[in-house]
C-alpha cells in the first residue's frame, strides 16, 4: 500500500509543531529554574555518566530512566544542541539600538510599534504596548529593585525559599512590610499553588495609578493589570524576563518607573551596583496562559 501523502498543515503537523514548541520551552524553563537540582544530580552520578553533562540530568528527570540507560540514549542520539546565547542576542540588541533612544524617555507610537515587532519576532510571542485600549503610562523606563512580597499570612524570609542557591542570591533583599497591590497571593501556605509561588517570584511593580484616565476606570484597570504578563527587556543587553504585575509603584518622585522582584532584577542583569537600569516593558498577549513566567532562555 502506498504512503498517504499529507499536507504540511494537517491536524497532526500543526499540533505536533505547537506541542513540540511548548515542550521545548518547558524543558528549557525547567533546566533554568532548577539548575541547582540538576547540578546536585550530576554530582551523584558515577564519573563516566557525567560526560554528557546537564543533558543527562535533564534526561533522568524528564524521562525517569536510570543513568546508564540515559547515557546510552545520549550516545546514540544526535549531538546535544547548545546555543551561543550571545550571538543569538546580537541581532536583537542591534535592532533595538536603531530604535530605542539612549536617554530613558517615553517612546513614540511609531517607536512602540517597531519595538513590539522586534520583540515579538525575537521572543516568538505576541508583544503589544496596549491591549483592548488599555496601556501603562510608558513602555520604556528605569527599573529599580524591589523586595520580596508576603505570599500568605505568616510568610517570612525563613519560609520564603526552597533552595540554598536562592537563599544565597535573594535572601538579602528582604521582605516588603506591606502586601502586594492585589493582597496575599494565597490564603495559607497549604493553599499556595505553584502559580502563586511563580507570581511572587517574577513580579514587577508598575505605575498603574499613572495610566491614562486611571481614576475614572479604576475597576477596569484593576482587573486588567492584575497578574498581567509583561515582557521586561534590558535594552542594552537583551536579557529578558516574563514578569507579572503584582504591585503598584514606585512613586513618581523616585525617578524610577517600575520595580522588579529580586529574581527579576537578577535575570535582567541589574542585581549589582545601583540595582537599577533602563528596560523596555510591553504586554504579552497570552489569552490562553501558555507562556511561563521567568527568564527567557536565550539571555
Amino acid at each position, binding site marked *: 500500500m502506498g504512503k498517504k501523502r499529507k499536507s504540511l498543515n494537517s*491536524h*497532526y503537523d500543526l499540533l505536533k509543531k505547537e506541542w513540540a514548541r*511548548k515542550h521545548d520551552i518547558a524543558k528549557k524553563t525547567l533546566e533554568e529554574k532548577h539548575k541547582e537540582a540538576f547540578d*546536585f544530580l550530576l554530582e551523584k552520578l558515577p564519573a563516566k555518566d557525567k560526560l554528557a553533562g546537564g543533558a543527562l540530568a535533564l534526561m533522568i528527570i*524528564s524521562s*525517569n530512566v536510570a543513568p546508564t540507560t540515559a547515557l546510552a540514549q545520549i550516545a546514540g542520539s544526535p549531538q546535544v544542541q547548545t546555543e551561543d546565547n550571545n550571538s543569538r542576542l546580537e541581532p536583537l540588541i542591534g535592532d533595538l539600538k536603531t530604535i530605542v533612544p539612549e536617554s530613558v524617555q517615553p517612546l513614540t507610537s511609531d517607536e512602540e510599534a517597531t519595538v513590539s515587532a522586534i520583540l515579538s519576532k525575537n521572543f516568538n510571542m505576541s508583544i503589544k504596548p496596549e491591549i483592548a485600549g488599555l496601556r501603562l503610562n510608558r513602555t520604556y523606563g528605569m527599573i529599580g529593585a524591589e523586595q520580596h512580597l508576603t505570599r500568605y499570612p505568616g510568610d517570612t524570609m525563613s519560609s520564603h525559599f*526552597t533552595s540554598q542557591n536562592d537563599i544565597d542570591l535573594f535572601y538579602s533583599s528582604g521582605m516588603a512590610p506591606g502586601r502586594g497591590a492585589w493582597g496575599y497571593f494565597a490564603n495559607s501556605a497549604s493553599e499556595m499553588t*505553584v502559580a502563586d509561588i511563580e507570581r511572587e517570584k517574577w513580579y514587577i511593580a508598575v505605575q498603574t495609578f499613572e495610566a491614562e484616565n486611571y481614576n475614572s476606570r479604576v475597576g477596569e484597570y484593576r482587573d486588567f493589570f492584575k497578574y498581567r504578563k509583561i515582557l521586561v527587556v534590558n535594552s542594552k543587553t537583551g536579557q529578558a524576563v516574563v514578569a507579572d504585575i503584582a504591585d503598584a509603584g514606585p512613586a513618581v518622585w523616585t525617578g524610577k518607573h517600575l520595580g522588579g522582584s529580586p529574581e527579576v532584577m537578577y535575570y535582567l542583569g541589574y542585581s549589582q551596583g545601583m540595582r537599577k537600569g533602563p528596560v523596555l516593558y510591553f504586554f504579552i498577549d497570552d489569552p490562553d496562559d*501558555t507562556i511561563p513566567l521567568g527568564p527567557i532562555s536565550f539571555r
Partner: protein
Amino acid sequence: MKKYFYSHLIELDILKTQLDTLNLTAEEKKELTELAHQNIHHAVMDAILLLLKEEDKKRFLELLSEGEHDKVLGHLNNKVEKIEEKIQSAASEVKKELMADIKKLKNSKKSGNKKRRS
C-alpha cells in the same frame, strides 16, 4: 506509554477523546499523546521542585535517579501537604492548554474551509 510515579493521578481520556475528533492516524495519535505526556511531565516536575525544600528536593532526586518510584510519592506526601492535589492541578493546567490548542485547530480549520468555499 511510560509510567510515572504520579501516572495514576492523571486522567488523559478527555484529551484522547478530543484527539479522536481530529483527522489522525493511530500512529499520529500515539505520538501526540506521548508529546502531551511529556508536556505534563515537565509541569509536574517543575511544580514538585518548586514546592520542596532543599534537602527534600535532594532526596526526591536521589529516589528518582535510583528508580525507586514506589518511594517517591511517599516521600512527597511526607514533605508537602496535599501534594497529590498539587500534582493534579499542575497537570490540569497543561491539559487545559493542550485542549485549547485542539479547539483552536478545529476552529481555524473550519474557518479555513469556509473561506475556501466562499
